[in-house]
């Protein structure tokens, strides 16, 4: 099995220097793109490879690039979303710490495809080790002439800046991220205009996830058919899957896109710890819907999980065992979302704290008849389309699915006036 993204990452994650990276064939794809291809053929290759964004929404990467109008002015921006503040998600960190040159090469190719000469890496502040390694790799790439002016003698230029976020989950939402890069409060912007038309400083802007861009050099280097053959499903490539919670071996694995949840849970994560049983899991971070036993044989890909009423999200699963209280679990998640709400729109600013208080009361044994219905009402009222951005709908996904699959646990708390697990 091939693992293009992680094959050269060492077990201790110590990063590859530029010469080590080049020994593995590094920067050959960027050279090929800039010297032998044009921006459109690079974009078409990425479209045909069926690469879908790994940041959560799963949009076709090449198609997103192609939305920049052909006659748009030359000043365009590429932005790497390395915020990764979604609880339960820890995949981009591996790529940033373990092989920063792979990301830089992906950025050089993506910037060429959209014809940007300035790029920003938006990095969360907790990733200080990644920041130091990125700065070192960027300096090496500049010294080698792979950044700056006239890269590989192609006439193209690229400057890459690292912006350390001052911290707030909403910064990961792409229009909020753009506001943060402009030095503002990170409130989302209304769309349209989409960032591809008017983004950073009013210029066409593409925002892509770290893992998404790390795939690009491999697609250009080895081609569309190879990339599609990596997956077990209709969309191409491998995926970084992860597991946390009370499994025997929490961790991160690069596997074919479409690997089943059961294989990840039982083979790679080693199954549940002794004495514990599997109860449910969030497949891709805090803002995805629970999957339960009957879903475990589904392929972890965009379409299959969508059809099962959940989302692949970031692909890093959070596992819940049968001794962990589902009410407490959801309460912890909602507390996070309520705290991180940017406060811009009323349903989210007022609704999330209300849900949080209701869950806290149920957990503390002060739940009342009708509370479950109140929670259900909010799950609809804060759902997709009723708020300015996807933070509140995302927060409702674990809640709504918990009310569906673990309803008895909520009603038992209310009836017994206490948490059976404490």
């Amino acid at each position, binding site marked *: 099995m091939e693992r293009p993204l992680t094959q050269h990452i060492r077990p201790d994650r110590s990063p590859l220097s530029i010469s080590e990276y080049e020994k593995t064939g590094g920067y050959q794809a960027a050279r090929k793109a800039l010297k032998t291809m044009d921006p459109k053929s690079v974009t078409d290759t990425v479209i045909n490879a069926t690469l879908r964004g790994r940041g959560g929404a799963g949009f076709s990467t090449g198609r997103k690039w192609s939305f920049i109008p052909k006659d748009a002015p030359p000043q365009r921006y590429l932005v790497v979303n390395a915020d990764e*503040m979604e609880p339960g998600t820890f995949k981009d960190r591996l790529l940033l710490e373990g092989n920063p040159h792979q990301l830089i090469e992906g950025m050089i190719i993506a910037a060429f495809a959209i014809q940007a000469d300035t790029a920003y890496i938006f990095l969360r502040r*907790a990733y200080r080790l990644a920041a130091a390694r990125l700065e070192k790799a960027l300096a090496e790439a500049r010294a080698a002439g792979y950044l700056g002016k006239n890269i590989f003698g192609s006439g193209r230029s690229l400057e890459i800046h690292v912006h350390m976020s001052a911290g707030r*989950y909403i910064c990961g939402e792409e229009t909020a991220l753009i506001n943060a890069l402009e030095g503002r409060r990170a409130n989302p912007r209304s769309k349209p205009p989409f960032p591809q038309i008017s983004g950073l400083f009013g210029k066409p802007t593409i925002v892509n996830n770290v893992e998404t861009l790390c795939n690009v050099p491999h697609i250009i280097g080895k081609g569309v058919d190879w990339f599609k053959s990596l997956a077990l499903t209709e969309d191409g490539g491998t995926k970084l899957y992860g597991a*946390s919670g009370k499994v025997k071996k929490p961790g991160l694995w690069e596997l074919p896109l479409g690997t089943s949840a059961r294989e990840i849970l039982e083979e790679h994560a080693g199954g549940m710890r002794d004495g514990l049983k599997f109860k449910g899991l969030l497949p891709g971070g805090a803002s995805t819907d629970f999957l339960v036993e009957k879903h475990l044989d589904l392929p972890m890909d965009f379409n299959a999980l969508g059809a099962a009423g959940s989302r692949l999200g970031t692909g890093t699963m959070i596992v819940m065992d049968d001794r962990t209280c589902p009410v407490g679990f959801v309460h912890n998640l909602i507390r996070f979302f309520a705290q991180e709400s940017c406060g811009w729109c009323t349903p989210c600013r007022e609704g999330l704290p209300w849900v949080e208080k209701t869950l806290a009361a149920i957990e503390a044994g002060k739940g009342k008849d009708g509370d479950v219905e109140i929670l259900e009402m909010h799950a609809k009222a804060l759902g997709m389309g009723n708020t300015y951005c996807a933070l509140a709908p995302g927060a409702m996904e674990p809640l709504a699915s918990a009310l569906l699959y673990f309803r008895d646990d909520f009603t038992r708390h209310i009836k017994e006036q206490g948490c059976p697990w404490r």
Partner: protein
Amino acid sequence: MLSVEEKQEIAKMLEACPMPRAGCIEALTVVQRHRGWVSDEGVIDVAALLGMTPAEVDSVATFYNFIFRGPVGRHVVLLCDSISCWVMGYENLLDHLKTKLGVEPGGTSADGRFTLLPNVCLGACDEAPAMMVDDELYGRLTPAKIDEILERYP
């Protein structure tokens, strides 16, 4: 008043920004690096430098979790309170830290050594429960391990 050093560092940061106000977060970060936190005076000085009003700068400064508008101790302990760490029992560790440092979350120990701040997911969920002290990440924590780690920070 911003020091010469602070002004120089901010000027360097502004090079990557097409307009001065885009460097607002970086400028606040520079001030915080030099003084530990950002006072009202710091807000006013940054505003003057970037051609913004103090209210605008304050609205940015108060939005972000890592710009401290109040004093902090010599070291900042960030204990993850998000879901994977919750499942793995971070609440016991929080109790342990509160007792050991004699503070509530947000507080600074009487000797000025540590400020305790619960923090969202640190991106180390496979090593939960996790915390950061200043720039350093620590995973698979136990109360004993926390005691030993804190010893390293005078």
